[in-house]
């Protein structure tokens, strides 16, 4: 066990956990930020996606020991006073089915749109390919990313 200092959603936090603990479980079990989901644990499904600085990363596969001092944003920190435009788009198009994968999808989409504010369909499909949705709400996810891009431009 060791102590680590991180910035999560703009707040300084300190956690004492085993050094190999993946960020995902630190978020969920230690910090009670349960918006970030567990789907596979091996960086294959994207349910656990969070931002490290502005980059989308798979929190299930990053041990806490490599994150001392890191700046992390989770879904809980995405909406400031009101919903983020990506969330707005998700709501407007009524994307979720079971909803379990959607937080990861939204985190991937927000980071992608920061890098590429004006994507075409092919780029959207490429960017979102790493996030599984078992309910197959893919059509709406694709449309929501495009709508969010429009909202933010």
């Amino acid at each position, binding site marked *: *066990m060791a102590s680590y200092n991180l910035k999560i959603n703009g707040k300084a936090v300190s956690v004492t*956990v*085993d050094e*190999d*603990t*993946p960020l995902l*479980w630190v978020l*969920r*079990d*230690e910090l*009670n*930020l*349960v*918006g*970030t*989901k*567990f*789907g*596979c*644990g*091996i960086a*294959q*499904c994207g*349910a656990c996606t969070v931002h490290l600085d502005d980059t989308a990363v798979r929190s299930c596969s990053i041990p806490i020991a490599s994150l001392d001092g890191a700046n992390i944003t*989770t*879904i809980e920190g*995405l*909406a400031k006073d009101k*919903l983020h435009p990506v*969330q707005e788009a*998700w*709501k407007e198009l*009524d*994307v*979720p*089915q*079971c*909803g*379990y*994968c*959607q*937080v990861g999808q*939204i985190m991937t989409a927000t980071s992608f749109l920061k890098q590429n504010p004006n994507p075409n369909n092919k780029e959207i*499909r*490429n960017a*979102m*390919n*790493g*996030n*599984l*949705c*078992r*309910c*197959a*709400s*893919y*059509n*709406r*996810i*694709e449309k929501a990313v495009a709508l969010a891009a429009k909202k933010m431009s």
Partner: protein
Amino acid sequence: MGNQNKLTFSRRNFLRTSALASGGLLIGFNFLTSCSETATPPVDISKLNFKDFNAFIKIAENGYVTIFSPNPEIGQGVKTSMPMIIAEELDVPWKHVSVEQGVLDTNNFTRQVAGGSQSIRFGWDALRQTGATAKQMLINAAAIKWNVEPASCSASQGIIKNANGDELGYGNVVNEAAHLEVPENVTLKESKDYKIIGKDALNVDVEKIITGESLFGLDYKVDGMLYASVLRPPAFGQILESYDSSEAKALPGVVDVITIGEQARNYLNQDSFDPSAHWSVQLSKTDKVVVIGKTTWDVIKGKKALKAIWKDDSLIESTEMHNDELVKILDGKNLDTRREDGNIKKAFAEADKVLERTYESPFLPHNCMEPMNFFADVTNERVHLVGPIQTPEAAAKVVASLLNRNLEDIHVNMTRMGGGFGRRLYGDFVYEVAEISNKIKKPVKLISTREDDMSLGVYRPAISYRIAASIKDKKVTGYHLKEAAINSNMYGLIPHFFPAGAIKNYKVESGNYQSNITTGAWRAPYTNFLAFAEQSFFDELADLLETNPVQLRLDLLKNVKDGEDPNIQYSAKRMTDAIKLAVEKSNWGNTKEGIHQGFSAYYSHNTHVAEVVDITLQNGLPVVEKVTVAVDCGIVVNPTGAKNQIEGGVIDGIGHAMYGDFTFKNGKPQDVNFNTYRLIRMKETPVVNTYFVENDLSPTGLGEPGLPPAGGALANAIKAATGQIMTKQPFVKYLIKHKTGLKV
């Protein structure tokens, strides 16, 4: 699943009202069965009793309406669409309605089962009657206040009016209404007057979902809760011989290592245990080793540190062996006849031509995005269970027997479910966590990794179909379908689905091989593969008959008289309409160069669906570009939700037909996570365009019926593009092997 019972209730027996202590009117109702004579809704809202009523409506003094619905939400949208139906007849603005998941603090639920796409179909009449009855009571109360005849009053959008132009809001009369008799003869709206039904309504939980609120079983926590991870036999057919937990116990986060299994064994060994009456109960006979720890990561690590020795207890099976057994069944004579018309022997003997094909499908895991998990807190006073389960009633009963407790002690609370697809009909993980908490007497959450989830499955079983048709004078004269399946066969009215009734000489037979691999319902059980087999077969049949596949279906449907055979519940008329709509919207037969189309039409879960798949070929492999879907599900309650279900079902069907593969070697599943098990991803998904046949008929289910036709339509498109006939799922295996043989 598939309970086809007709609804029978009189209004008096399914609805009761009471005045709330806090003010307002509470209506308890039961949308499937009648309430007992003595049942009354509580006056205290915190004491909702879902034993006598399975849903409640509260109308508060400010006119706002809260609907407490305990029906589990697995992503099929009933938590939105069912309240819409009530609100429509009650006639309140949708924005004044909120929906709360009812707390299931009871043990005698009536159909709190999300499965078989039946929630809406069963609820339709009762939900409308309830809304309309409540509205009439409010009108009656206002009429008394005004001292006028109720018939001279009307209500709309939460406001009651009389002939003098006076107005009262619902909230102004709720307290009076609560003391009135429940009226018997209320009229329901005509569909042309609907204001809420038929309009898009957002998923009621959408905002919570996209902001990451705690909703799912995995998110549920209480103070002092421990975590548990269960080590089960690595292969089906094995049981625990011995284990060494010293390394695991030495880990600082591991609290204890225990075994469970004894209680499950006792239960299974009871003389009274009848597996057929317990279809949703999956229990194994082995002991299992459980690591208890402080956090999820602690138990994941703890389990890895366990050393266990397993021994073979029953046959160790493999996919090759299953395939051999299924072929033996198809070749053999020991099949059960499930439907028989005319004389197929004669038809085949007199045929000009005979077409015969065998279709094979693999096992499939459900792979709900949220892996199986459940919470239990067993104390001397009570057993508290919380989590995602589609069958809380069965779970409560089994846990009561397992732990030797009174049913009254068992309390089940349902969370939102990160997918169901049939998997959460089976409560194995509930029984396990109950046994664990009973042993340690602490609140504990059982968690599964993806590897656990994929290897402790209640899989869709491998199934093979052999279909033969006889042709004489360019007509189909006989049809013979045989099903060979692992563990169990098609249920309910499936043997009477199309083309039953359309071909004079017709026979469906089935047989099974009993395996120790656990199997069960998987989104659109049986039809998820049967539809593929039959719909591919029809395409080839059309070629032999030198007609086009759409025309063949339409011609066959002409032979069917709706309503003539009570077992035949599909409607030739409705199917024909759906087919015509799909043909029109897809531009069937008139597409651009390079686009190849496949057609399929299928009835399941009381809904008629026709689909056209458009593909192109890239490097010899199919790229699914577009799927046009025509659906007759009666009145479409919530179009956005309905389309979402169809889009999901179709892509799911395409994905599993293309990629879904799950094999066993030495009793072990060969894929246990998404690095090797392939699910469809965004780049592989087509655009799905959904169209509804417009009519006034009662709504039917949508969670499942979009899926079955998809695989067949895709196979037929591949056939159109390449001439290759897909008889085995997943297609990708075959296509890659034979890629060079394709014309591009």
